């Protein structure tokens, strides 16, 4: 049975087409889909969603491309999600009087492969601000963090097709809510369906739910639901504390939930040994960072580390697993790079972190204002 044939008169290969009123069918399908999509969009707006830019490898690559030929007047920020949430870019510009700012932080990623890339693959000699989240920065995996190395690789192999797709997405993202690839993707919505599992079912670990709406220049503003919905904020805190509750690649969900609950309540274990350095490993880690920072400073660049705030049990977990003296203080001492730790500056304290890791959107501008003054002063 074939749906194609050779036309015996013309010897041309042809395909059969079902004889249906296609004009009418197409029009009805079009109208139904437009109406359904409009309903879908309105439904999610009613649920508190707003248009947001997606944080993708391509959106990072777009700004990494700007960094390639950035002059010495530029400031580049890199780090993990705390740099995205806590540093308000318009406030930074106002406070420093410098419009030339590039945000290259990436949620869940170590900044080190990005710093290495900027030092080794550009001639950038402006100001580099490196935000430090202890669990990601002082981890055995941070030097070769696969997410960050993946980003760098994506930029260096950024194909025209990926660029075109990025620009096409930018046409949709500021207008429509339903195009958000994270929370509102059909696959994620299906996975959210809760059903009872088998008694011996072993689960992987939680993904991070929607936390922010992101701006065109890659600033994350905390989603209002994280602030107003305490159960949602508790869930996110549990996810952060779950990093210390893991005992293997997979766990029974009930065991994991109870360990997370214990951790949230303060009965946590330090981060597992596969994350923490031995003293010898830590020294060579710092020496490698020093080799890059020296190289960067020798060509005229200015670099500074910043440690944004964390709160609650997450702060305590970070302090227990990555004691400041052995990590932050040692980093500054071994590299000779200046640093600003929120604990040392009262003006960087007292802000609200609803899920213990990031500032709520309204608190990012005053935090940034204080931080910018300190950074300018430290680098003067």
């Amino acid at each position: 049975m074939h749906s194609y044939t050779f036309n015996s008169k013309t010897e041309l290969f042809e395909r059969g087409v079902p004889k249906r009123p296609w004009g009418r069918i197409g029009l009805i399908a079009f109208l139904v889909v437009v109406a359904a999509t409009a309903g879908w969009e309105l439904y999610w707006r009613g649920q508190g969603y707003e248009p947001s830019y997606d944080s993708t490898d391509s959106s990072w690559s777009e700004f990494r491309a700007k960094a390639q030929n950035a002059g010495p007047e530029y400031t580049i920020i890199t780090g993990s999600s705390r740099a995205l949430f806590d540093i308000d870019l318009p406030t930074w510009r106002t406070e420093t009087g410098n419009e030339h700012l590039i945000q290259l932080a990436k949620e869940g990623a170590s900044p080190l492969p990005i710093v290495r890339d900027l030092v080794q693959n550009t001639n950038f000699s402006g100001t580099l601000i490196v935000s430090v989240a202890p669990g990601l920065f002082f981890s055995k995996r941070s030097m070769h963090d696969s997410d960050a190395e993946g980003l760098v690789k994506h930029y260096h192999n950024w194909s025209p097709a990926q660029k075109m797709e990025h620009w096409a997405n930018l046409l949709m993202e500021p207008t429509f809510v339903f195009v958000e690839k994270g929370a509102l993707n059909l696959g994620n919505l299906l996975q959210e369906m809760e059903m009872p599992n088998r008694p011996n079912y072993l689960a992987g670990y939680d993904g991070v739910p929607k936390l922010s709406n992101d701006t065109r220049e890659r600033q994350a503003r905390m989603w209002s639901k994280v602030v107003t919905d305490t159960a949602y904020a508790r869930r996110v805190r549990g996810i952060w504390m779950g990093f210390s509750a893991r005992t293997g690649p997979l766990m029974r969900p009930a065991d994991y939930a109870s360990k997370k609950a214990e951790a949230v309540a303060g009965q946590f274990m330090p981060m597992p040994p596969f994350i923490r350095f031995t003293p010898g490993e830590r020294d060579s880690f710092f020496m490698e960072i020093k080799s890059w920072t020296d190289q960067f400073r020798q060509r005229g660049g200015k670099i500074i580390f910043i440690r944004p705030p964390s709160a609650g049990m997450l702060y305590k977990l970070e302090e227990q697993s990555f004691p400041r003296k052995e990590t932050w203080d040692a980093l500054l001492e071994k590299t000779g790079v200046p640093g600003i730790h929120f604990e040392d500056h009262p003006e960087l304290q007292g802000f609200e972190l609803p899920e213990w890791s990031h500032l709520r959107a309204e608190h990012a501008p005053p935090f940034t204002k204080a931080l910018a003054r300190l950074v300018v002063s430290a680098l003067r």
Partner: protein
Amino acid sequence: MLFNSLSFFFFFALLLGLHYAPLPWRVKKANLLLASYIFYAAWNPPFVVLLWLSTVVDWFAAKKISQTEEPGRRRLFLWVSIVLNLGLLSYFKYGKFLLDNFTAIVQAAGIDYQPAAPDIILPIGISFYTFQTMAYTLDVYLRQTKPAGSFLDFALFVTFFPQLVAGPIVRPTELVPQFETPKQANLQQLMWGLGLLTLGLFQKMVVADTLLSKTSDMVFGSEQALHGLDAWMGVLAFSGQIFCDFAGYSTAAIGIALCLGFALPENFHCPYGAVGFSDFWRRWHITLSSWLRDYLYIPLGGNRLGATRTYVNLMITMVLGGLWHGANWTFVAWGALHGVYLSAERVVRGWWGHKPWASFPIVTMVFAVGTFYLIALTWVFFRATTFSKAGQLLASMHGWHPEGAQILPTTQIILVAATMTAMVGMHWSMRNVTLEAVVSRSPAWLVAAVWSVLLFSLIINQGGGNAFIYFQF
């Protein structure tokens, strides 16, 4: 550029506008050719040079072959084409594989040899367009077709973007004549083409990527021995994923070409409704299996040289077919298994094929289920990256790890079970009928409703634009 991307939507809309503008046919063909190069270059611009090289060499080789009756010269130009095409394919696709195996052999002989790791990037779709251009030269050599009348038509045949990177693999007799005279789709063809494009994208984006890929990735990526249910769900999920990924691309390609007024051949027809393995290969990747039959199996002697040679020819054809899919011994095992199946089927048909009970519906059903089961086993080798992983999964599937890890949540088990039941049921019920015939018999409101559901699910499924699995082949 991926069909399942927003950028392709804009690209195709622009191209359709140009194709239906009042321009001379030659200009429209030039537009199509330029668009095809842009489509291909969007992945990696320098690799367009390979396309040009293949196009120019095959154009001249075929021309030279057709201009002479001298067997030696004809053979010489045929070999120029074969060496160039297979040489490029071998270098880019099999270079690392050959080097790895050579190194392993040398090291096994006690020689300390460690070559530098080759940094070879596989040009996307090279296996597809290599076979397509080779078919042209071979057909001219075998006097199955005359050389194309114009270089533009031939270049477009090699490069035609809908099927360039993942098939269907088109024969020159099917496509080159279509470029000779002005072609435009009428409203019926345009709408049916858009319908096929929607169906193809639904197969890929919703069924393969959303409903099945996560389960398949979890099971094949697991380092633990798995419980039987999890292993089976993973293998079933991959069986559905590989079909919907590849058939989805082919369906979309056929639809896109039809929107422009061109006909491409069917590449899949309800393979999971197959009864026996020769039936399966008449339904699965039809254009590749017919290519291998016409240009490899038959020239090797096919079934004309006695039983033993027939089995040897089958094995050679299927093993090379496996290797075509990827440079790994697991693909060779996949092809070899199919060769064994096809050979065994010939034996069994010799014994039972003529028995009256062999055509009873219940027997047919049993054979269909057996075929599906054995095909599912082959997918284990296709998807697993190592033989130990494949062995571990096969053991789990057959009850050797009753205490194995249970890693799939109920939601995913239900999604896979429901999807695969629906898919196999549809393949069985449509095994002797075309999609066109089914749609012709359906009421217009139902066709509109199904189209709306497919399209809406695509819109709400927007995701990361995953590449098609077959792009890597």
